[in-house]
């Protein structure tokens, strides 16, 4: 009985002490950052209050202690607090960047199941009728998948040259499927091959051109990829002469992803423009700051 009573008292004392020290350090922190002018004001009010309750010594102690603490420890404590805040902010920034990177990875990983099934079906059938062609399409499919799955993407893949190469793999597969209904034209000067260009954007535009522009068109058509430098910008353009864009058709996640990623990478310096030329079809242009090669 008595032992538990003592324990209870001890617990209470410990808690009280703990609370008091917390309050004291909070007071200490407040003192460290408060402006002198505000401190003077509190002195004034405390003095009035203490005079009213007839305990002027208490007010004197308050003024003395706060003055001493402010003068002796204030500067150091203030610096500490600012440092802590700066660290916290830096952590938030790192977190935000990590989150963004993760989102980007997720955005980039989108292989159409339809495309995959159809291509596998095609390979399956070619194995019987034309094994050489089957091997060719199969190799293209591996190239394409490698570029599409972020965890398999090699380093240094984010150049225009590499992106064009991967797009050719995709287009070769589509040509094997669509035969004479799909014609492909590339107009990308060699010197632009080393220019940095974000992964999976060109592919998405080409996939859109085929899926929404050419596949629904009975006679098929042409996909033309063109890259050129305009002023300080690199323009990469994917045009098709397909059925054009239905104003009521959803623009899909593909284009929204490109816009979002351009915004994250380049801010207002990059853009994705969609136009429909008078002759029909659709053109998508990615515009971003041109650099000769990736930063080391």
């Amino acid at each position, binding site marked *: 009985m008595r032992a538990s009573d003592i324990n209870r008292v001890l617990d209470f004392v410990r808690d009280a002490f703990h609370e008091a020290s917390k309050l004291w350090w909070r007071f200490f922190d407040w003192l460290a950052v408060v402006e002198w002018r505000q401190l003077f004001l509190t002195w004034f009010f405390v003095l009035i209050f203490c005079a009213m309750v007839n305990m002027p010594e208490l007010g004197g102690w308050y003024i003395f202690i706060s003055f001493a603490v402010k003068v002796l420890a204030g500067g150091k404590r203030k610096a500490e607090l600012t440092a802590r805040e700066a660290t916290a902010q830096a952590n938030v920034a790192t977190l935000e960047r990590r989150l963004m990177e993760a989102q980007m990875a997720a955005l980039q990983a989108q292989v159409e199941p*339809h495309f995959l099934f159809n291509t596998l079906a095609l390979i399956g059938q070619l194995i019987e009728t034309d094994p050489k062609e089957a091997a060719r399409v199969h190799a293209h499919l591996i190239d394409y998948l490698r570029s599409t799955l972020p965890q398999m993407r090699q380093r240094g893949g984010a150049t225009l040259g590499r992106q064009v190469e991967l797009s050719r793999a995709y287009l070769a597969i589509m040509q094997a499927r669509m035969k004479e209904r799909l014609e492909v034209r590339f107009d990308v000067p060699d010197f632009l091959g080393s220019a940095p260009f974000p992964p999976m954007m060109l592919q998405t535009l080409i996939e859109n051109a085929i899926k929404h522009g050419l596949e629904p068109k009975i006679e098929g058509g042409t996909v033309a990829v063109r890259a050129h430098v305009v002023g300080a910008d690199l323009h990469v353009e994917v045009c098709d002469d397909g059925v054009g864009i239905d104003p009521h058709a959803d623009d899909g996640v593909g284009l929204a992803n490109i816009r979002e990623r351009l915004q994250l990478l380049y801010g207002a310096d990059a853009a994705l423009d969609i136009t429909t030329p008078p002759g029909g079809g659709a053109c998508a242009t990615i515009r971003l700051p041109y650099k000769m090669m990736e930063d080391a």
Partner: protein
Amino acid sequence: MSTIPDERPVTALIADDEAPMRDLLRARLQAVWPELHIVAEAANGVEAVELGERHRPDIAFLDIRMPGLSGIEAARRLYARSHIVFATAYDQYALDAFAQGALDYLLKPVSAERLATTCARLQARMRTRARTENGAAPAPQDIGQELAKLTALLETKGKPDKPTYLRWIQAQVGSSLRMVSTREVLFFQSDEKYTRVQTAGAEFLIRKTLKELLDELDPDEFWRIHRSTLVRVDAIAEVKRDLRGRQMLRVRGYPGELEVSRNHSYLFQQM
């Protein structure tokens, strides 16, 4: 004009936009059902209907995704005369529909075993038809309802019915039309004869009036906040009151402010 299948070979039509797939199906059919006579091959839906009407095949193998007309649309025109077998590589919604329905279908690439089973079933059906047949040929099977369901499923892509809203704003720029996705638009503002379309990086003038836009756009995507302003809800950054007590609205990616008229201030009433 009755036809008795025993007197002439059973005929078939193959429709697929991908030539390799037609080749494969033809080769497989020849292997498992050598007597089957493939009378025509079509490379798109329109051709499938044309050839189907001309040759009146007993069986039509139709790919679901084809340019011109989908396999399902083609089937709706052909099923009265021809038995329909669908083919698809992957189509979740179609497969769901097939699983519940009485429709015949093949998965691509077509395996010999699966095709043999399908052909055996087709042959059995042809025989019963031949036995019961006297005079007018009955329809191979009544799949009209089934097809209507399938069409509805594919058109809405499995989503519940949702009206289609305007998703692209067309703005004349030089000789071509700029297609501005509604997701890019921050706000529309009427400007005498034109409507101004503001995006984060540019502005365009279009001839469509605000009233027309209001009717065509998704009301959950764009709100009218003023007689002359439609704003995209997702772009709103904050709403505050200015010195004169008007509600002013700031949108992401645009430096200026937009006024919310008194009639529309209920949109931003505090909870």
